């Protein structure tokens, strides 16, 4: 399949291939562009050319909680994200899809600046959470991360009791009031649909739980601090179908209360759980719109090819 993605050789004459025109006349969303063969944009991306993202108006109409603004990221000399510009709507679930290595997780980890931990990372552009610049040099990264919650691919409960896991973010803030901690613990575990399963063994080690329970515990931990954005990095990839179903139900319940930005490899999951879907390819945003539009009537054939499983 990837054979078709091999970039065309540049002409020996040295003439640059024509850039795609940026100032195309606005078209109606949902009408696939018939003029281009489906893989052209992807080939152009693979060749390293600029490709304008196709962002639907429905996304732009929503009030954003997070705005990614012309964001570029390099690992050493290798550029992993190219001029990503996308708003993430408030209190909606937004899914990031795309083939492996397309930069979904990198984008997600850039939101709470976990990429700062990687020495060779360099960025340009900015992101804003509720209007505050994330990459402002004056921004305290510790305070920033407290405004977001994150759940990782593999459940990563801490080596302590279930209770302490949930209230971890309060503990590091120095909260010692038992009543507050108890209240947050119960609310978060209820929010993560875990309370009934673990309410009798809160003081037991979290490492003794099943994988699905551990992942829901991680979600409880992430929502304990009332985050402005919840970042989910393939939260179900290490779980069996039953546990996955429970997590998806949970995401449905979180819908409307939290702004969720979720990376997933599972097209069904994206279509079931999310309000908006962004398709990324090789570090570039290709198309971004309401989930129903992306899955039923995408603007680009490339998007259709990907979401229907014809490549990737």
């Amino acid at each position, binding site marked *: 399949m990837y054979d078709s993605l091999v970039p065309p050789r540049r002409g020996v004459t040295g003439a640059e291939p024509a850039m795609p025109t940026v100032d195309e006349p606005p078209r109606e969303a949902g009408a696939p562009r018939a003029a281009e063969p489906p893989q052209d944009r992807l080939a152009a991306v693979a060749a390293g050319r600029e490709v304008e993202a196709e962002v639907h108006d429905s996304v732009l109409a929503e009030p954003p909680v997070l705005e990614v603004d012309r964001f570029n990221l390099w690992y050493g000399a290798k550029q992993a994200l190219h001029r990503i510009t996308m708003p993430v709507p408030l209190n909606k679930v937004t899914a990031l899809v795309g083939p492996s290595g397309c930069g979904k997780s990198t984008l997600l980890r850039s939101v709470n600046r976990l990429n700062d931990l990687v020495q060779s990372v360099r960025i340009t552009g900015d992101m804003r959470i509720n209007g505050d610049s994330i990459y402002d040099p004056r921004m305290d990264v510790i305070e920033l991360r407290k405004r977001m919650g994150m759940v990782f691919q593999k459940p990563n409960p801490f080596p302590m009791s279930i209770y302490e896991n949930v209230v971890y973010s309060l*503990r590091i803030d120095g909260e010692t009031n038992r009543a507050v901690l108890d209240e947050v613990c119960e609310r978060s575990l209820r929010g993560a649909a875990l309370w009934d399963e673990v309410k009798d063994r809160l003081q037991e080690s979290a490492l003794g739980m099943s994988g699905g329970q551990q992942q829901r515990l991680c979600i409880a931990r992430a929502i304990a601090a009332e985050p402005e954005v919840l970042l989910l990095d393939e939260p179900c990839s290490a779980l069996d179908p039953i546990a996955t179903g429970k997590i998806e139900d949970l995401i449905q319940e979180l819908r409307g209360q939290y702004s969720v930005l979720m990376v997933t490899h599972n097209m069904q999951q994206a279509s079931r759980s999310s309000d908006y879907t962004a398709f990324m390819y090789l570090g570039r945003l290709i198309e971004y719109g309401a989930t129903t539009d992306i899955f039923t009537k995408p603007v680009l054939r490339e998007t259709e090819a990907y979401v229907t499983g014809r490549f990737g």
Partner: protein
Amino acid sequence: MNSDRPARRIRSGHATLTAHGEPWVWLTAASLAIAIAMIVGLLVFIAFRGLSTFWPVPLERLTLADGRAVLGEVTDREAAVTATSQAVGHPARRLVRTGDFDGTGNHYEWIDDTAITETSRPEWATVVERVEAGRLHGVPKRMLHGTEVVAEGPEAVWAAYLKEHDAVRTRALRAQRIDKRDRGELQRRLRAARLAVVQAGLDAGPASERAVAAEARERALAEEIAILDVALDEETARLRGANDGWAIEFETPSGGVAAVPLDGIVRAWQPNRLALGESLSLYFSRWGEFLVDDPREANSAGGVFPAIWGTVTMTLIMALFVAPFGVLAALYLREYAGRGPITTAVRVAINNLAGVPSIVYGAFGLGFFCYVLGAGIDDLFFKASLVADGQPTFGTGGLLWASLTLALLTLPVVIVATEEALSAVPNSMREGSYACGAGKWQTIRRIVLPRALPGIMTGLILAMARGAGEVAPLMLVGVKKLALDLPVDGTFPFIHPEREFMHLAYLIYDVGFQSPNSQAARPMVFTITFLLVAIIALLNVAAIWLRSRLRRRFVAQQF
């Protein structure tokens, strides 16, 4: 399809064997079996030799062809090597512990089987463990009190011995205690007063008010102590007077008579008459003495308590020093330091430090801790002692410097083990913590350290095992052949980290190879070795127990 195409050819039986890998199973299994056999063999050998030292062995009376007779424990036998060697004078022979040091100057004697005309086990043959000059083997003849004969004949003497010995021995020990402890205490007070005078002279000038006052105090103390001394003299004289004259005469195998003062007998037993229960009680009483008493007779008899104390204390203090330093250093190296050539160089250097011969650390400890740091401390705080009698306090080997030296020696072990433990903590846990808004130190303290603790403990166990068994550096920085003053006692300020101490591992070397009568001390070598192994095992078991508790708490199975 070609039907007569040959089936896949098997090249040789050889290839199959290699594929199945049977020889490798044998080879690896055999290596493990040999390793286990060596370790178990070592432990069994040491345990057997060490545990049998105190078991009472029958005394045999051997009458020799030349008319001599010896009474002793047969400790070893040697078969004639060949007929030829027998002809040239190497017949089968046995090693006898004669206990006749007074007569022959030897504790042991090889006796040819051909020279023995008669063997017997006299019922009343007695082993007498004396305070001085080792053992005596003989048959009790008379018990004397002054010129009066209290009892005569083995049975009566033995009964009288059992009746009188305890009281006499108690009095002797009390007198000894007064001499050693009470008089020692007086001497220490006197010395402290004298040092105060010197110190006052150093601080304020020899003719100053302070110096004069200190001198007056010293004189007053000297007078007071002189009075106390007289009282002690009277007390010891009374105790020793009560013991005077009590003695037992033993008939030695050669027919002579040896008189032993009763207060010079530590214990006596008659191995040929002992029932099993009595043997056991004797065995454990000797073990008890070994574990809680001070050594006698150039460490070849008595107990090893100061050495046990020194070994355990030094190991624990060492662990106390090395654990925080090692863990903090490893934390920086693994968690904070950037990846780069300098970090790599430091890591390689630390690994290399683990391979430096231990005596090098000893030389460093002596040269730096004792001669630089210690001398500096002496100069600042203990100058009086230096000036008054040229005696360094911290400027010489001692428990503190020995512990520090060993802490330095074991530091690489702890750092390397801690680094491994830290790198084994999954990165996902760190990221999870950061994502919750935790800072680096919060993450380390709450997530990384608890999770790595069992691994860190493993490193500490290894370090303690290595440190407890180290001898070479200790010889330079504070271990002594004999140091009865423990570094913790009832004398102000109660903890004396500058004192020299005894150590089991050094004691093995000293007793076995530096003792004036190493042959008599040889059984002790194995007993001390066994004890050292047991103590290290005990320390390790305690640490492993602690680690398994931590592991249960922090590192349950994933999924």
